[in-house]
Structure formats: structure tokens, C-alpha cells
């Protein structure tokens, strides 16, 4: 049985040390935000300029100037702070953020990531992803294991335009938890009943 998105999110959360600062990307990593226990002491960073994000506002507390990087309304924790984009990316690029969790299209054995562009397809831009993968202390990629054609997205070498070169620490998919080590993917954990053969690892 492969993991559900919620189980993948819980697996990611289990990697976080208490008191960590964490940046969560858009797409699949938003599931992580939804699963973080309310009593946790994590400091959630959003690159548009807030540290200390906590869930959603109520009708009474909602504010058009209080949003996350996905442009969604948010709420904040006690101890939160606001700052400009330069300081926000200083937190990222200066190596002060403990973990970032991003979605992925391809991750390769060399620890490189492609997650922002498919040649010939609609262009959305990289946003803060290239800064995050080069700056965060730990880069965790959360993505589905297989492409629509059934091929593994954990590959020998990325074919899509890169987001970052030699930057990925861990990959969580519905099949398990993996670490690219430069030559291959080490299997850290597998979903119950998943066999090594099913993974189609390079």
C-alpha cells in the first residue's frame, strides 16, 4: 500500500526538529502545512515576508495584507514577524532556514532538482524555488513517484531545466523516503508492502 498525501506529509513532519524554521512550497507541500500539529513550536516562513505562519484566519481576523507566498489568506502565531523581501530571502539565501519542502518534477542521483519549467509548455516562472534549494539547510522534495507514463521521477540525470544543481537532501514520494547520494538513491523508508522492484529506481 502506498502512502496517502497525508501520510507523506506526516513523514515529512517527522523529519523536523523541534523549534525548526520551515518554508513550505506551493503544490503538494501545502499538505504539510495542513498536517502540522497545532501545539508544535515550528516557525513557518513564507517568502513574501512573514515568519510564524499559523493556519487560516476567521471571518473576523482575515486581512487582505496578511497572505502567504501562494497569495492565500493566513493567520499568524505569537512571536511572528514581518519583513521585506530582501530580509526574507536573506533568511533563505543566508542559510538561516532549517528546512524547505518543495514539489518536484524530477530529482536525480546527483541531488539535482527540476521543478519549474517544461520546454514548450506554459511558463509560470521559478518564484523563490531556486533561492530556497540553494539556501535552506535541508531541502526536502515531496512529489508523486511516477510520471503519467509510469516512469520513475527519481532519475539518473534530470532532463528538464534545473531548479538547482546538487541541492536535494531527501525525497518523499507515496512509495517511500529516499536520499540521493551522488550515485544512487538510498532507500530510507518504504511504504508498507512496497517492494524495491516497484520503485523503478535508476
Amino acid at each position, binding site marked *: 500500500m502506498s502512502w496517502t498525501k497525508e501520510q507523506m506529509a506526516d513523514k515529512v513532519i517527522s523529519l523536523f526538529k523541534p523549534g525548526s524554521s520551515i518554508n513550505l512550497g506551493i503544490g503538494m507541500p501545502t499538505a504539510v502545512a495542513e498536517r502540522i500539529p497545532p501545539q508544535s513550536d515550528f516557525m513557518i516562513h513564507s517568502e513574501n*515576508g512573514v515568519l510564524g505562519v499559523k493556519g487560516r484566519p476567521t471571518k473576523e481576523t482575515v486581512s*487582505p495584507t496578511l497572505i502567504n507566498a501562494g497569495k492565500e489568506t493566513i493567520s499568524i502565531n505569537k512571536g511572528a514577524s514581518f519583513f521585506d523581501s530582501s530580509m526574507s530571502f536573506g533568511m533563505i539565501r543566508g542559510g538561516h532556514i532549517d528546512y524547505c519542502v518543495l514539489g518536484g518534477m524530477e530529482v536525480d542521483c546527483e541531488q*539535482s532538482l527540476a521543478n519549474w519549467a517544461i520546454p514548450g509548455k506554459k511558463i509560470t516562472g521559478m518564484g*523563490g524555488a531556486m533561492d530556497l534549494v540553494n539556501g535552506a539547510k535541508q531541502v526536502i522534495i515531496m512529489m508523486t513517484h511516477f510520471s503519467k507514463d509510469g516512469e520513475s521521477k527519481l532519475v539518473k540525470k534530470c532532463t528538464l531545466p534545473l531548479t538547482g544543481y546538487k541541492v536535494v537532501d531527501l525525497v518523499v514520494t507515496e512509495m517511500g523516503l529516499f536520499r540521493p547520494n551522488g550515485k544512487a538513491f538510498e532507500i530510507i523508508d518504504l511504504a508498507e508492502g512496497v517492494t524495491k522492484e516497484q520503485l523503478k529506481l535508476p
Partner: protein
Amino acid sequence: MSSKVFKDAQSALFDFKSGSTLMSGGFGLCGIAENCIDALTQMDVKDLTVISNNIGNSGRGLVKILVQNKIKKAFCSYVGGNPDLEKQMMAKTIEVELVPQGTFAERIRAAGMGIRAFYTPTGFATPVAEGKDVKNFDRPCILETALHADFAIIKAQKGDPYGNLWFKETARNFSPLMAMAAKTTIVEVEELVELGEIAPEDIHLPGLFVQRIFQGKDYKNDIEFLLLEDQS
């Protein structure tokens, strides 16, 4: 003190002309200079180079001048959620330079700080690195240059006649950086207050960086994605 206070967006933009480079603050629609953007829609200007994180979104913000074909070139980090810009990019009627968001912020900051260029690992071995100088420090880095502008249009919650500004919540984003990087910074505020009303230690951007300021009006403050506790 010669006055920096203007009546409205139109009067504050009196010398804005075709071919200008314009920085526009805001993240998505959060913290955008609504009055200045509306005034630009009424002005006969073209061939603008615009530096803004999203160039508006969902048909709003800077999209209003984008669809008037006033923008020749855009620097931004993210265009998802902006179908009008995607369309112009595909049709090649606009030149777009996609910049990683942190590099984007830093290039603007660098301009304001007098830094000509800097090396960063962000973008190395990606399409962003094409044609750029590479140098190895602890890791390979690429050379990025400062981004200047003729004008910046930004919005703050509070400002005083000297141009000292206070931003609300996450509406600050790129605005203070842009104010420092532009030759002429035009600020619109929700509340124009007396000198001294914002405590000196609460000033987010000293008025030194502001050339013009006016009391804005009719703010929409659109929310792009409204998500509430009981819905999520």
C-alpha cells in the same frame, strides 16, 4: 522643507514618460499602488520596462497597463496566475526576464545600496545562468547585476510628509527596496499622517528614499485566495 506632498496619483506622475523603467511594489495584489496604476492606464505612455514580482495577477494590478500594450519588457519572478502575461509571452509581444525571487529582491536592493553586482549560487546550472560569469567560491556562483529604475510606485499603510513609511503585515515585500533603487519614488498611502506621528523606531522606510507622496483613495485591497479556518 520643500513639499513632497502631492494631491493625487495623476499630479505625482506628472513627468512620467514613454520608455521609462518602472518598479512597482507588491506581491501578487498585496500592497500594490492601486491609484498610480489606475493613473497610468489613463496616460499616453508606451515602451515601458517594468520591474515587478508578478506584473499583476488575475486581470488586476499591473495587468491593466499590460493589456494596453504599454509594457515592452518585464522583469519578474512568477507569472503563474497571470494569464494575460502568459499570453503576451507566448505571442512574443513582450520580452520577459524571469528572475529567481531572491535574486530579484537582491538585485533591487543592490541598486539602492550602491552595489553594482554580486555573486550568488542561486540559478547556477539553470537557464538563469546563461551568458553569466561563473566563479567558484565555496560553491559555483553566477554574477548578477543591480536593477535600477527611473520611477518606483509603491503603497504604504501610513506615511508622513517627509515620506517616512509604515507598512502593514505582509504588504511591505519589495516596496522598501524599490524605493531605494529608483530615481523618483512615488508613494501612495492609506493614511497620510503628521510628521512625528509614526514613532522613529517604527519607521520601516526613512523618507530620504521618497520623492513624492500622496493620500490615496478608493482602495480595493483585493484578496486573491480567500481561505478561512472553517473552510480549510
